[in-house]
């Protein structure tokens, strides 16, 4: 039987506020354990939480940027469960009246556009961090708890089960990340846990509309882990079903070292959270005017920016979607063309040599040794004919190590393109003399043979001869 995967994501994103959601403790990452705690976030008796205004603002912006309806009346609820990273024994979250609902984002996979529905976005507090005495939670006799992260504001973005493959899930999460970066509400540093996903995966026979039993994998914090975990789980569930087995609804952990998912608990906890309205926090009322005001002030979003790059600069949909996939990349592109550099060339260099070098060195575009201005200036040198595209590759790798301007590098390394016919003539004559066969071919009507000769001249000039000048000169000499 052929199966179809059904995937839904719950993405948690920490918001980039200065303080926690209900108290004035700082949210700075990496502080010494239990130094950013107070009676409110420790859940001591008798304290009164107060909502950080910025959190509501950021959540509304996230909702609008993902085409959600903003609820004019929204409230907090208590989600009751016992876990040591949660000092109050409930998580303050939102249940039936979340800040935003019924949205969607568009993804592009294999040049096909697809809408992924958003069920809701709600605000809640993050939990603390456990450090286990053993190698993992199962073999640890005790654990140590750091409550610095407790109360850091989160939005949880819940998708519909609209994804059918790991690639779609990745594209969806990348799109959410891009949007949050564009509207500047989260740092989205996945390695710091700013952005993490709980994945739900189930299988059903192709053509069946009823959902199968799902498993959940929590706290996935890299795109690679997301794809690997989904692919593994699809494979595992397929095997279970093909062997006539049954999928058990459970939480599984992803072990990136072994590349497998493992069952987390022997008996599945009943998800009985006994939500109740939070009596300590008055409801949040947002007027239509306020919502429209937020909407008007949203910056340009990834999809709009992509469409603009296609229209204004003639970039392909694929190129434009890669360049707009992160705010930093899109801003880098703007910086390159601000120098006057050709947009298509800019796109090619960004997606080619720049991306290759960034990946190899493991740096983000923001920390690129070659900044937008220098890349733009280098492209201008190609446009002016000072250097050839081939030489530019050398200039680029030199710029990667050397902070000099491309002009200076070209001058210092003697990489200026030779357009002076006299200087090229000697080489051309030599090549003609040495390649009698290609010359004969050309003279016998095979005009393509000139390509081989141009190549020889370029090689002999170490790439510095202007290919167009070489072409003209050869054509003239071969009559």
């Amino acid at each position, binding site marked *: 039987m052929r199966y179809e995967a059904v995937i839904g994501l719950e993405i948690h994103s920490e918001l980039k*506020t*200065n*303080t926690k959601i209900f*108290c*004035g*403790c*700082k949210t700075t990452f990496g502080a*010494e*354990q*239990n*130094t*950013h*705690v*107070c*009676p409110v976030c*420790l859940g001591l008796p008798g304290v009164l939480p*107060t*909502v*950080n*205004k*910025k959190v*509501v603002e950021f959540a509304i912006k996230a909702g609008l940027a993902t085409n959600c309806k903003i609820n004019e009346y929204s*409230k907090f609820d208590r989600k*009751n469960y*016992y*876990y*040591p990273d949660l000092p109050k024994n409930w998580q303050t979250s939102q249940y039936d*009246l979340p800040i935003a609902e019924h949205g969607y984002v568009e993804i592009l996979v294999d040049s096909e556009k697809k809408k992924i529905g958003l069920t809701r976005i709600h605000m809640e507090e993050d939990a603390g961090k*456990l*450090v*286990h005495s053993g190698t993992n*939670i*199962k073999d*640890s*006799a*005790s*654990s*140590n*708890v*750091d*409550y610095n992260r407790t109360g850091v504001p989160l939005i949880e973005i819940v998708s519909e089960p609209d994804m059918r493959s790991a690639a779609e899930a990745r594209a969806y999460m990348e799109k959410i990340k891009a949007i949050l970066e564009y509207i500047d509400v989260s740092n989205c540093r996945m390695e710091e846990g700013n952005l993490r996903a709980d994945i739900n995966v189930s299988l059903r026979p192709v053509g069946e509309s009823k959902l199968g039993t799902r498993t959940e994998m929590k706290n996935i914090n890299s795109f690679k882990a997301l794809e690997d975990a989904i692919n593994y789980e699809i494979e595992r569930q397929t095997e279970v079903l093909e062997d006539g087995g049954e999928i058990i609804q459970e939480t599984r952990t992803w072990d990136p070292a072994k590349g497998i998912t493992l069952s*987390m*608990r*022997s*008996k599945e906890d*009943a998800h*009985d959270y*006994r939500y109740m*309205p939070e*009596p300590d*926090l*008055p*409801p*949040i*009322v947002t007027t239509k005017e306020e919502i429209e005001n937020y909407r008007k002030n949203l910056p340009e979003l990834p999809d709009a920016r992509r469409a603009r790059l296609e229209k204004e600069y003639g970039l392909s949909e694929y190129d434009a979607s890669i360049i707009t996939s992160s705010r930093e990349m899109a801003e880098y592109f703007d910086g390159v063309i601000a120098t006057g550099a050709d947009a298509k060339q800019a796109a090619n260099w960004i997606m080619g040599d720049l991306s290759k070098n960034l990946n190899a060195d493991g740096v983000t575009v923001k920390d690129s040794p070659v900044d937008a201005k220098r890349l733009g200036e280098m492209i201008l040198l190609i446009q002016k004919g000072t250097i050839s595209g081939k030489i530019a590759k050398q200039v680029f790798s030199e710029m990667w190590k050397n902070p000099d301007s491309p002009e200076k590098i070209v001058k210092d390394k003697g990489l200026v393109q030779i357009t002076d016919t006299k200087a090229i003539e000697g080489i051309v004559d030599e090549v003609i003399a040495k390649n009698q066969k290609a010359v004969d071919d050309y003279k016998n009507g095979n005009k393509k043979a000139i390509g081989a000769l141009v190549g020889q001249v370029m090689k002999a000039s170490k790439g510095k001869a202007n290919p167009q000048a070489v072409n003209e000169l050869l054509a003239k000499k071969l009559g």
Partner: protein
Amino acid sequence: MKVTEEDILHIAALSRLKIAKEEEKNYQEELDKIISYMDILEGVDTENVPPTTYALPMENVFREDEPKDSLDRELALSNAPEVEDGYFKVPRVLEES
């Protein structure tokens, strides 16, 4: 609404409470009385009454996103049953399977 002995065991498990066998019946009867008392409210016609989500006539109580001092760590940890290296130390998290 009838509270059963099963309900009592379920709620006790969710609340991590151990209830002695001989106490089960007592809890069941008492909780049943409390819940049944609430049933009186069921008789009120609420057809045109919007659900109450908050008891006081208040909304939009916010604070600005400005940092305040946190507790000294020593003070924060002072009531913890066990402390290790500036952490709250807790016993095994997952029950042994």
